[in-house]
């Protein structure tokens, strides 16, 4: 009997098997054929192992970076990149991440069913990353096993339903209809950009009126843009660290600049591998999630990945990226002067988040709105991680961290609650948020009833 229990525990502690079972469950619920169920389960299983492999590569490249930065500048340098920080966390938190993700999706459906926040969050990789962050923060706060999964899932479900709501009015303005929402965990920065656009923008002059050089399109390719920016970053840091230190302690004798190139390339390679693995995992899980939520909450809006807004304003995409990146550089300079942790501008967040902020800023305030909105949110996503890292436990000392605004915002709230009153404070916080959401739902129903009379 004990042997069987041990086996079950081992299964539950192997995240790769867990996510495969989640995919199988999803396929079974959708009444798929046996071959499809088996295929889906196997691909998901392998996918998680691919992610683990990529994680190893990234961690291997990040550690020397952190060490070089400390030696060179006597400060902690952090590159915000979701794939990288999840890679670091996966070793210890893989199981809780998988279980919280499943639990979070269930709660997303329940919240969409019973409250006015009718959004189904379909950007799977963000769900996975947010599940990871919630797993880390709540574990550090003291939650374990069942309560960790249930409450963590509830927190994730709330974030999944509320994040799209923050941006919806700008989405309606941009797309001209209310049937699709934005599912990307930087809603706080998008709302900021849209607000700034409205405040100081000029809708007459749009970003699309400018003639833009088409050659910059290569930045859309993450692998290329990460490899290039990481090479620049690693090389600069290596130059300041000096060849002696690197060749003695890190590279085993290899020339220090070649070493920098090897490590920066490995970083890009690691991200590529992780994304490939995530694609395999989500291939089965997201359609299952969508299928089930379609049946249970038919009037819900799908919240989709940020590139859905890019075709509306392709110039704003690039303008938003540059403006956000400049915001990141300015923030970095400020941090250098104030000392402590330095958040380096991460090309991935500044591209995807900055681009989206640019499109939204343009939609509410034209060219001025796009530039100002992206710049300000670029600073926001640079400073927010400073306040997030202290609540991540040991992960706060890694060379990377979560990059988008909603990660930092939710993390800071959760972490602050934990610091104020541990698990109890978090539970009270969750209860209050749910109460507010239910109250807003009731108010909304009342309004509709009054209007109908």
């Amino acid at each position, binding site marked *: 009997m004990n042997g069987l229990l041990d086996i079950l525990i081992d299964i539950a502690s192997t995240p790769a098997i867990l996510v495969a079972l989640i995919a199988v469950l999803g396929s079974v619920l959708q009444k798929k054929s046996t071959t499809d169920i088996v295929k889906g389960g196997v691909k998901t299983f392998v996918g998680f192992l691919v992610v683990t492999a990529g994680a190893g590569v990234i961690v291997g490249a990040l550690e020397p970076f952190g060490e070089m930065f400390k030696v060179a500048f006597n400060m902690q340098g952090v590159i915000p990149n979701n794939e990288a920080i999840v890679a670091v966390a996966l070793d210890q938190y893989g199981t809780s991440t998988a279980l919280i993700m499943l639990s979070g999706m269930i709660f997303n459906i329940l919240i969409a069913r019973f409250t006015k926040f009718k959004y189904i969050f*379909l*950007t*799977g*990789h963000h769900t996975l990353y947010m599940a990871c962050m919630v797993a880390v923060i709540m574990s550090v706060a003291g939650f374990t096993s069942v309560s960790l999964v249930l409450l963590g899932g509830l927190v994730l479900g709330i974030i999944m339903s509320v994040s799209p709501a923050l941006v919806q009015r700008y989405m309606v303005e941009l*797309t001209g209809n209310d049937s*699709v929402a934005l*599912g990307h965990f930087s809603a706080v920065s998008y709302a900021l950009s849209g607000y700034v656009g409205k405040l100081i923008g000029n809708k007459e002059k749009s970003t699309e009126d400018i003639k833009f050089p*088409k*050659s910059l*399109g*290569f930045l*859309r*390719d*993450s*692998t*290329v843009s990460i490899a290039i920016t990481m090479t620049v970053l690693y090389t600069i840091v290596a130059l300041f660290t000096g060849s002696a230190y690197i060749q003695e302690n890190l590279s085993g004798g290899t020339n220090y600049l070649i070493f920098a190139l090897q490590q920066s390339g490995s970083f890009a390679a690691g991200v590529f591998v992780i*994304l490939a693995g*995530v*694609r395999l995992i*989500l291939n089965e899980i*997201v*359609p299952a999630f*969508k299928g089930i939520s379609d049946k249970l909450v038919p009037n819900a809006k*799908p919240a*989709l*990945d*940020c*590139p*859905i807004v*890019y*075709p*509306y304003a*392709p110039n704003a*995409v690039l303008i938003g990226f540059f403006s956000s990146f400049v915001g990141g550089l300015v923030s970095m300079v400020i941090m250098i002067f104030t000392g402590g942790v330095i958040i380096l501008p991460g090309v991935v967040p500044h591209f995807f988040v900055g681009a989206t902020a640019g499109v939204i800023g343009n939609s509410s305030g034209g060219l001025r709105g796009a530039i100002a909105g992206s710049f300000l949110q670029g600073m926001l996503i640079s400073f927010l991680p400073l306040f997030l890292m202290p609540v991540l436990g040991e992960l706060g000392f890694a060379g990377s961290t979560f990059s988008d605004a909603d990660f930092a915002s939710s993390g800071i709230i959760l972490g602050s609650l934990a610091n104020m009153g541990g698990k109890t404070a978090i539970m009270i916080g969750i209860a209050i948020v749910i109460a507010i959401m239910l109250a807003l739902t009731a108010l909304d129903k009342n309004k509709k009833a009054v209007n109908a009379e």
Partner: protein
Amino acid sequence: MVRFGAACGSGLGSSFMVEMNIQSILRELGVSDKVTVQHYDLSSASPGEADVWFVGQDLENSAGHLGDVRFLKSIIDMNELREKVTQACKDKGLVG
């Protein structure tokens, strides 16, 4: 078997949505057993992997090498997608 491909910058979110939407349109047209649909990220997609590609117009400059590409003004507009998928099916002789 005709092969449709949806491609986007990361191969994760948007191309996935387009793939699922294409599949539901193919079911509407009654030809879902004659077409396979897959999603790809632009950097690893090669022209031989699909007969017809669907890509958002903001990626116009990066997708030329794929061959027969139908660009979408909006990757969430079902009407535009339905129009373009139906046209692609007509071009491949799947519908009249």
